[in-house]
């Protein structure tokens, strides 16, 4: 079975926006929720993941003829773990503060299913150039998503952007935004906006007018059209 033919630019752009790993495919949500409480942490995690993804895709694509099919997952994991160890040591050497803040989540890049998914679905079946393009695109998409989450959470939760205060001393921080619930709220809102953006293009369903003065509305009052509670009839809307 030969894969569908795609152009190089398609391979690159797909992961950035239309098939964004976090916002569309819902992969790699654990780091997206856990370490995005500041912009700096988000960027560091995004870049580390980008590095691991690119390195792994390159190596998997190069070695694809030598990896036996039966043990391919373990082989991919070994390759990914190699790059994660490198990223871990690099971060510890270059930015020790951020390395400390990210904690165990750097090691957990190994089990980021977005990375394994790209190896299994793409890098192991395509030439090196395409595998790299795909890794660049997907990694960039991951950075974009984490950056968006980090921006929302740091601005609201701390009143700053990359540590620079935006609103002065009187700012009233939304403490919940830098706590775990804030991660869920932000991700939920971003997904909502993305879904709305996609759905916006669909043609709205208009009410159909049947003869005899009967109007059939599709999804008229929405789910809220049903009575509010026990034993009460809502007034008819038609």
């Amino acid at each position, binding site marked *: 079975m030969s894969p569908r033919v795609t152009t190089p630019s398609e391979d690159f752009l797909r992961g950035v926006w239309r098939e964004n790993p976090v916002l569309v495919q819902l992969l790699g949500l654990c780091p997206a929720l856990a370490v995005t409480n500041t912009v700096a942490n988000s960027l560091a995690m995004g870049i580390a993941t980008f590095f691991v993804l690119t390195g792994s895709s390159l190596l998997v694509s190069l070695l694809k003829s030598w990896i036996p099919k039966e043990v391919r997952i373990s082989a991919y994991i070994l390759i990914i773990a190699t790059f994660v160890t490198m990223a871990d040591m690099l971060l510890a050497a270059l930015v020790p503060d951020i390395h400390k803040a990210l904690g165990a989540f750097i090691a957990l890049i190994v089990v980021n299913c977005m990375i394994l998914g790209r190896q299994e679905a793409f890098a192991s079946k395509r030439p090196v150039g395409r595998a790299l393009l795909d890794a660049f695109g997907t990694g960039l998409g991951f950075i974009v998503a984490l950056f968006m989450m980090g921006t929302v959470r740091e601005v609201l939760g701390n*009143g700053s952007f990359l540590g620079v205060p935006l*609103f*002065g001393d*009187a*700012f*009233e921080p*939304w*403490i*919940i*935004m830098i*706590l775990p*619930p804030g991660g869920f*709220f932000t991700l939920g809102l971003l997904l909502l906006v993305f879904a709305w953006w996609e759905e916006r293009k669909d043609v709205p369903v208009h009410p159909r007018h049947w*003869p*005899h*003065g*009967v109007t059939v509305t599709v999804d*008229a*009052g*929405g*789910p*809220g*059209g*049903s*009575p*509010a*509670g*026990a034993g*009460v*009839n*809502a*007034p*008819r*809307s038609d």
Partner: protein
Amino acid sequence: MSARLEAALHAGRLELVASPHLKGPQSTVRIMWTVVATLVPVVAMAAWSFGLSALLVIAAATLGAVGTERLFGQGGSLADGSAALTGLLLGLTLPAGVPLWMALLGGAFGIGFGKLLFGGLGQNVFNPALVGRAFLQAAFPIALTTWPIPGQGWSRWAGDTFALPLLSGGADAVTGATPLGLMKFEEVSTPFRELFLGTTGGSLGETSALLILLGGAYLAYRNYLNWRIPVSILAVVAGLSSAIHAVDPAGFPGAPFMLFSGGLMLGAVYMATDMVTSPVTNAGAWLYGAGIGALVVLIRLWGGLPEGVMYAILLMNALVPFIDRATQPRVFGTGRRAAT
């Protein structure tokens, strides 16, 4: 179909409508606005205690709720009055001194996340007003636990009312602890008369137990709330706290204090009885109320917070589908329970 009937249909003299064909006089709109009307004395009491700030906070919370419903609600859902009621109830759970932008945000969050995301009126799991309150409590813990003392007159602003959005105003307001806070952290009791009439510190609607009970009694009389819910909440709180008080009178407050302090009355009468988020069966209503009562006592006496009514109700809201399923009545004439 007979020819005459068909002719009548074509002429537009007959209309095809789905059942139900018999309807009671109640409607969502009427119930919602009746509940709002019974809250007017409570709002007036809040205004009398805390001045104009109270009215502005309630108005801002209502505006946030109604505005969100208007923007994102489906098909004229604003007209049923439920969003206005949510905003009003949220406003009554806030301290008088919160900045207006926070009250507005709480109303918007309560309706947006607490109700519309679930699909609008009738679909939500959690009480929207309490969702808004819980969000504000988690986001701005200090502003939400700064209690202006009542009775300072109309002209005095109770706190940072007019702070700009995202900022705190830094105003100097005269604040004091609530009766529950005094009990928990300083072991000082408040006289019963003050608690009952509501001349103590606290949230806007937490103060007068008398007015809330009167409004609740009227709603129960009109069958707009299931009286079993507040009765079981209050009974369990009274019973549990009396038992604990009997064991250790010095360490724990007695039943009157527990019943008439904090948000218990407002929560039991107006929040827990929300038709959407409370059980439909009467047996379920007893169970649900008892659960809330027990959680309130647990959180107040042994929890880290002085007040626990909000979390008690939200936790039991989550259990309502299970309570409903467990308390289905038997099908008449058979030994088996109705399927859910």
